[in-house]
């Protein structure tokens, strides 16, 4: 499994196009003219950027009405939907990419949703906060308290983040589900990539980004 990761190219982060930099990485991974489903699409920034810059057509799924209004403002197709309801009404292979940015940790069944993503999409893109970051480890190990960080600011009792994982945990799940990691990028909480992050990413990265597809059976 670790081998898969080490062979995956690590992205360099583009800057300066106004898009949040993790979304900019995702945008770089998406081929022009494709169809994208964005799970938990937020204010629609990614889809709006993809539509304008890459001629990408797609839909966002979002629960929050403020975000939905923001998507509508941008002219992004947005469907109000709770991700915990799954993707059963989307046909197999109906999208080129299914993206889930910073939502893996809030859904009830991340493993099932990941499987669903790669049923509906030919490729999947997932980003999430790395619970293996040294500061979370230190807070729990040394302070004896549940960690609160820049990427995970809530308290244990009011957090929406119910399924936190480390980069290694996620990669293990991908292996278990026979998902191939095509690319990986890691950043700090400000979505900056620094050379140091590539060394011991599971300790130093605050956010992990993955491009996945179902492994070809040989």
């Amino acid at each position: 499994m670790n081998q898969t990761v080490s062979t995956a190219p690590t992205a360099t982060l583009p800057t300066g196009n106004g898009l949040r930099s993790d979304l900019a990485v995702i945008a770089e991974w998406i081929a022009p003219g494709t169809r994208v489903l964005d799970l938990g699409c937020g204010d629609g920034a990614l889809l709006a950027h993809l539509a304008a810059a890459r001629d990408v057509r797609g839909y966002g799924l979002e629960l929050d009405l403020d975000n939905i209004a923001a998507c509508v403002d941008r002219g992004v197709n947005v469907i109000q939907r709770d991700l915990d309801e799954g993707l059963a009404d989307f046909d197999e292979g109906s999208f080129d990419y299914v993206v889930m940015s910073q939502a893996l940790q809030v859904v009830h069944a991340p493993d099932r949703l990941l499987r669903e993503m790669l049923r509906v999409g030919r490729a999947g893109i997932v980003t999430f906060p790395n619970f293996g970051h040294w500061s979370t480890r230190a807070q729990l190990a040394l302070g004896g308290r549940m960690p609160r960080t820049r990427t995970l600011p809530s308290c244990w009792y009011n957090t929406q983040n119910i399924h936190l994982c480390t980069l290694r945990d996620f990669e293990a799940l991908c292996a278990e589900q026979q998902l191939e990691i095509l690319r990986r990028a890691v950043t700090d909480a400000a979505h900056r990539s620094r050379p140091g992050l590539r060394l011991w990413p599971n300790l130093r990265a605050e956010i992990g980004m993955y491009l996945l597809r179902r492994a070809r059976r040989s």
Partner: protein
Amino acid sequence: MHERGSVGLVRPEDIDFPGAFALDCGRSLPGFRLRIERYGQLNAQRSNAVLICHALSGDHHAAGYHSESDRKPGWWEACIGPGKPIDTDRFHVVSLNNLGGCSGSSGPCTPGPDGQTAWGPDFPIVTVRDWVRSQDRLREHLGIERWAAVIGGSLGGMQALQWAIDLPERVAHAVAIAAAPRLSTQNIAFNEVARQAILTDPDYCEGHYAREGKRPARGLALARMLGHITYLSDAAMADKFGRELISGAPGYSFEPEFQVESYLRYQGSQFIDKFDALTYLRMTKALDYFDPARDYGGNLVDALKRVEARLLLLAFSRDWRFSPARSEEIVRAALRAGRDVSYACIDSPLGHDDFLVPVPEYTRIFGAYMLRVAEECA
């Protein structure tokens, strides 16, 4: 004297469409009249016109007032006017009374083929498809190439959907609020009880009540009361009327003792003075027959594949007449058909009636969408 954000005083117009007009039922009208209202300026490119389709008991008077002494504005005053979601500073708004109506367009109360006596019960049963075709004649008459949007709630939303399917090149956006892809069996059952209330009223006189100098007022009032039960949710009714006895103790009579009883009676009695029973029968039939998928082997996805318009669907959480699940059926089919579609379910206080009310989250999303439409057609 009327509040800010209103189109103010408005004046209906009548437009006659000569020549036979074929209907789905196989009959045809020897020409027809539509009563319409228009608000807001049509731009030089004639690209900012939006069509408003009314629901079961609506008409052409969607916004503004007919006179200075008018106490009630048009039925969609909440959403049409300067600065409102359907912004009359940006759009040229066209609203009409549908065929078969009782507010000035050709219908059971207007002169029949001899030009003298009213059609009465002989006025044909019309469908949503018929309405769309008649509205398209109106579009042509007004010199509008393509509607910037066709918009409606409930039965009005169904017309917007039918427009997008039947005349894809004529609609840039279709907005269907609190609608359904077709009626449920239960919806049809309610309509049937409403019709039976009218049809079995002794004053119905086989539909010739006007000729007999009578009016099936009890039947029509009952039909309306039944309708109103479906316009509010159980919770909204409880919130609004409670179940306390008005006099504090049971009176052991059939006089209204609970607030909800007086409410329904009031709604019924108000309705009979402004609506016609033969029209009510026809409107409910149009609802029952509405099923755009039927023309495509029962497959809504295939029907929606024809659509070129971008779609906005809005539903209300407490609506049980056309519940959010019904709007979601349309959304699912639109997704499968690969159409541009957006959807939101608004947490709402009332139920089906919410589409008429300025619920903040509703008008915000609706308004944001319409602003995009306005920018596109400016």
